[in-house]
């Protein structure tokens, strides 16, 4: 089966690593950082305006892939909710000795409960680990794009990008 986002809907590791919004291994080791998984040229630039520290640049034409200036990135996560493609995440590999923190947009009900244990998934929707829900942020300014933070085993920091949706009653 051919790899690549146009064949599977999942960006391949090559596509991710070669995109300018993907942080380096070095920067990931230093602490919380945005991970922009935007690999196709689409006219779109809300992420640029979203960053209060000027760490994301799209410029013109607006089909440019967003560039992450990883040294400017403070890991605040404000770039997560405005992305229309839900393609921005936050990863902190320094969360604890053996756990990493992953933040992702989650526009489903029910929202997970803080403190609960959930099934975390990779980009293909496969459950890869259990995770603890640390935070669920859903202020009005996020316009119905809640941001969920979970703690997962550190080695899965570049795999986990979401959780299983619970069946509704």
């Amino acid at each position: 089966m051919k790899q690549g986002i146009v064949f599977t809907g999942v960006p391949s590791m090559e596509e991710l690593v070669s995109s300018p919004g993907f942080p380096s291994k070095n920067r990931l080791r230093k602490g919380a950082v945005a991970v922009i998984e935007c690999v196709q040229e689409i006219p779109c630039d809300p992420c640029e305006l979203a960053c209060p520290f000027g760490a994301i640049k799209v410029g013109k034409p607006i089909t440019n892939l967003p560039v992450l200036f990883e040294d400017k990135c403070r890991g605040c996560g404000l770039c997560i909710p405005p992305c229309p493609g839900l393609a921005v995440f936050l990863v902190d590999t320094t969360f604890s000795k053996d756990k990493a923190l992953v933040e992702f947009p989650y526009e489903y009900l029910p929202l997970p409960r803080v403190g609960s244990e959930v099934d975390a998934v990779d980009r293909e929707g496969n459950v890869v680990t259990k995770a603890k829900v640390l935070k669920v942020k859903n202020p009005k300014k996020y316009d119905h794009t809640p941001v969920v933070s979970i703690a997962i085993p550190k080695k899965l920091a570049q795999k986990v990008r979401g959780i299983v949706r619970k069946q509704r009653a």
Partner: protein
Amino acid sequence: MLSAEVAVIGAGPAGLSAAIEAAKAGAEVLLIDENAKPGGQLFKQIHKFFGSKAHHAGIRGMDIGNRLLQETKESGVKVWLNSIVWGLFEDKILGVANQEGSKSIQAKKIILASGASENAISFPGWTLPGVIGAGAAQTMINIHRVLPGERVLMVGSGNVGLIVSYQLLQAGAEVVAVVEAAQKIGGYGVHASKIRRAGVSILISHTVKEVKGKDQVEAAIVAGVDKNWNPIPHTEKTFQVDTVCIAAGLRPLAELAWIAGCEFVYLSELGGFVPVHNENMESTVSGIYVAGDIAGVEEASTAMEEGRLAGISVAMEMGYLGKEKAEEIREAVGERLKSLRIGPFGEERQKTKQRILEAWQRR
């Protein structure tokens, strides 16, 4: 006979934008729509839009719709809802029917913004209750707040198929798979990634072969196809579903342009037969303009810009806007349109829109 300076037919994003521009310039505008509520398909688009700030990027479709409605009210546009334009006669006379009966309206300028309609594809079982257009599913869940079914197979991976799959999940349905007959996914990768994370399979080079059920959909059989769309034997998979959504593209709803005598050109990339128009959105019949999906199926953002172009052009032709001012605004809109028609998804549309301009030259 009643009269209107500018009659805009269709109150979707293109029609609303056209009406606002013409009315702001001072024209007397009558906006006619056959539905009970204006907004066209905009209020079903509950996702955040792409583009730049000028394109309302990051704002959800229905919120953009509300802004347009507010502007329409403030601009003094007269709106007739539940009114269908059934005829377009010589000298720009419209036949309109509503609760009060049928009337003729003499218009000076007409802007056709009647949008597009979904394509159907046929296969054994396609008439069973439960086989619906993807747009129909979107209308049911986002406007009427009812599920059309609980387990869905989506046929087609363009933006409509991918976005509606996501919205079905948000509404509480299960989407078992998206099948795409072509060799790659048609819509934006990010839309596909969202539903992959949610556990939805995307099968390229597959299409629906047959849908089974006694009185409604009970199962769908999909099969692999090669690059010439020929089914590949022994590749059938059966999905237990109660709903099959067809997202096989849209085509312009251009009957009024046909009966008005507008010239057409066939461009499959833009949905089929498209009325020939120039960069000011004027058709080959003087005084009749087109904007939005009727002028070529694209998206809401381009529909709004084309609506603006038509509205400005009409206002200028009627003397409500000076030529220079009109040119200034048209150039700005033109730039914004260009910026939406770039990149691997947009440049095909840009090339095809260019062919419409070439057809205009040859008319």
